[in-house]
């Protein structure tokens, strides 16, 4: 084939709540110290990554989003380690990086459009056009107990709420004229009423890059209409993600009668679909497989296994032995959707445990997601490049393990091979995150 290969986009997801059990790299400082994040960001920039994505601290939740449900957090069992607030941390990282995109997770459910749009626009100015916003729509009802407002009233409402939130934010970002004159804005919608002037001029990217993560039809629809980047979760190996990419890519962006106004207001441009992926490198295939299995074991600590079980069962199971059998009792009323009943998750887990003679912890390890790419650097580079060439994704959001040293290995060993194949940039050509992603600057809507 002589065609120019499709360019690959790479991002790194900073290990967060869902990866609290990821072993910290002994070479790094504590998981909260600025030095930890600085090293991760510098490594990602050295590897010419598109952006660094930080998960938030406001909604400790699984459900739809970046955290696989079996490892997600519940409102009453918060991340034991804790982590920094993303926008503030990224503002600091802006000072120690020059090109890397800086993506913050923030949930419409617990924010106000004016304040959040202002913080993101400030980050875009301070970083010279490298800000991005991961719109988290997952809502743990308990998270609301920390906030003044109730947010969306239910699951069905949350995308409509988020859509209006993003639309209001874009209007605020557009409210100054390109030559720096503030203008009054009035937004009146079902969820928000905003009138007045924004305090920040149009930022270097016009609008910070908007990211959404999810696999449901709602999530893809939302991403297609309101976002620039869709992050899909690690799916079952057989299913792949090509369906998502193709269905939600060009097609979903085509204007249609049911598309939201937000989509029509914006200039047409490609939605970038990135797949969340973990990788494990080894000098040989066997060594890589062995390390992958070891990482899975370390990820699922005994207490992590019990928490995962509690999510499914919706009960306090802290009295159960992680090395013992699964509970005989059935899931409670607070169980995860689809957990109960004869064909529910709980029944499937029980069947699996019985068939293979697994303990609670072994069952959780067995059912947890496998790493996407396991092998030698060459094999991993080939698999990633093939995946992009097939159109399965535009790139990957990598979760390094251990953190942050795992990323050093990727940057040193895999990135050069991707560059050699001509699928990954040999250098940054632009200054903004939009330019890395090949996204046009949004047309100013005066």
């Amino acid at each position, binding site marked *: 084939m002589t065609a120019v290969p499709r360019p690959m986009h790479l991002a790194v997801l900073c290990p967060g709540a869902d990866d*609290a059990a990821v072993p*910290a790299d002994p070479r790094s400082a*504590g*998981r909260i*110290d*600025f030095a930890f994040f*600085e090293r991760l960001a510098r490594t990602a920039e050295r590897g010419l990554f598109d952006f660094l994505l930080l998960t*938030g*601290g*406001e909604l400790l939740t699984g459900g739809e989003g970046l955290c696989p449900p079996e490892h997600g957090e519940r409102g009453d*069992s*918060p991340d*034991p*380690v*804790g*982590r*920094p*607030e993303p*926008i*503030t*941390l990224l*503002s*600091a990282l*802006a*000072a*120690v990086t020059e090109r890397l995109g800086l993506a913050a997770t923030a949930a419409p459910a*617990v*924010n*106000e459009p*004016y*304040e959040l749009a*202002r*913080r993101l*626009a*400030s*980050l875009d*100015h*301070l*970083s010279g056009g490298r800000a991005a916003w991961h719109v988290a729509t997952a809502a743990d009802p*308990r998270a609301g*107990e*920390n*906030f*003044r*407002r109730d947010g969306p009233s239910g699951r069905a409402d949350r995308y409509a709420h988020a859509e209006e939130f993003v639309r209001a934010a874009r209007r605020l970002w557009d409210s100054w004229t390109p030559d720096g004159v*503030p203008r009054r804005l009035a937004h009146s919608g079902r969820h*928000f009423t*905003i*009138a*007045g*002037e924004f*305090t*920040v*001029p149009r930022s270097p990217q016009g609008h910070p890059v908007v990211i959404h993560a999810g696999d449901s039809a709602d999530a893809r629809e939302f991403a297609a209409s309101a976002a620039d980047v869709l992050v899909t979760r690690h799916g079952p190996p057989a299913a792949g993600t090509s369906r998502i990419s193709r269905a939600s890519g060009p097609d979903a962006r085509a204007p249609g009668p049911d598309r939201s106004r937000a989509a029509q207001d914006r200039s047409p441009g490609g939605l970038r679909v990135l797949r969340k992926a973990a990788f494990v490198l080894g000098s040989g295939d066997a060594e890589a497989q062995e390390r992958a299995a070891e990482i899975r074991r370390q990820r699922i*600590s*005994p*207490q992590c296994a*019990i*928490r995962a079980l509690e999510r499914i069962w919706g009960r306090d199971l*802290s009295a159960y032995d992680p090395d013992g059998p699964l509970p005989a009792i059935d899931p409670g009323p607070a169980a995860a959707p689809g957990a109960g009943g004869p064909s529910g998750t709980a029944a499937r887990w029980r069947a699996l445990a019985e068939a293979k003679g697994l303990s609670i912890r072994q069952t959780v390890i067995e059912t947890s997601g496998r790493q996407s790419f396991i092998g030698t650097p060459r094999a991993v580079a080939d698999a990633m490049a093939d995946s992009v060439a097939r159109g399965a994704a535009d790139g990957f959001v990598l979760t390094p393990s251990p953190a942050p040293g795992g990323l050093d290995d990727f940057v040193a060993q895999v990135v050069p091979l991707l560059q050699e194949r001509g699928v990954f940039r040999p250098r940054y050509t632009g200054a903004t995150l939009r330019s890395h992603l090949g996204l046009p600057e949004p047309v100013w809507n005066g």
Partner: protein
Amino acid sequence: MSPTRPLHLAVALDGPARYDAQHYARLTGLAERGALDFVTLGDSFARPGPDALAVLACVAPTTHRIGLVPTVTTTHTEPFHVSTAVATLDWVSQGRAGWSVGVSATDAEARLFGRRPAAPCQALWREAGEVADAVARLWDSREDATGARTPAPDRAGGRSGLHRIDFQGAAFRVRGPSTVPRPPQGRPVTVVDLTGAGDAGRRVAGRHADVVLVRARDPEEASALRTALRREAAARGRDPESLRVLLSLAVDLGGRESAPGPGLDAGRRRRGPASYYSGGPVRLAEQLARWHRGGAVDGFHLAPIAPHRDLERIVNGTVALLQHRGLFRTFHPGGTLREHLGLARPANRYTTAPTRGVSV
């Protein structure tokens, strides 16, 4: 000569709105060279300007010692977000964060959020006091990591070292715990500027502030204010020695050779001549030394009307002179803002067991 309390100096970076990080990094670096305690950056939804906390977070990695104190408003924002953002500023600056408690009193600001109408200033300050309380409790809601960086989770579910705060204010509630680990300073420094804050603001200062910014016509008035604030703090069960009272002074070093640019003269009109200094850097040093020698205040918060022009003169002129006379430090002996201010790291109110040794 009577023993003089250590002099504390801070400067405001406020000026015409700027959005580039380099501008703020340059000014803060200048202030750090002068070994000042901290810089402040005001913030409001009512006028153009970037998010002040984000600006100072961006400045943090380019500086190493100086305290960073953005204004954070409490009226239309979430106490939980205020807490996590200031805690994170403390983490990225390795213990140099503070926050100046702000309120949003105007109708215009209320309309930007569309949640509730503007309220009288006194009601807003009462709420600001509740926010300061909740924010500090959230900082305590995770126990300090001991030895190993992360608290050892108990087998049952990793819930050790976390505390719900169950705070119920008049207009908000916060359950906790925080999502950010306890900041390096334990609690970042809380600053209350009494200008326009009235009696409610003074009560908030007495109860929650580590640093209070006041304005006064003369040393006697400043001294009386300081005494009243210390009494207020004592009445709240606090050690009055844990309070630093700084006199705020708008400074115009432009002198006669260059009149203030358009808009820069607003400070004089707004603040009145009492807290407005106009003249040269040497006379300013003499005035500061005189006020401090009399024991009227613990230090000064200088607000140059044109920081890009005057901050250098303040540092190289006024501060250098105070240092030369042995009245001000020539370097930062400590690493955290609390250390600069001579304030102890507060114990965690939720920790009952002794903190030394292995976590349980």
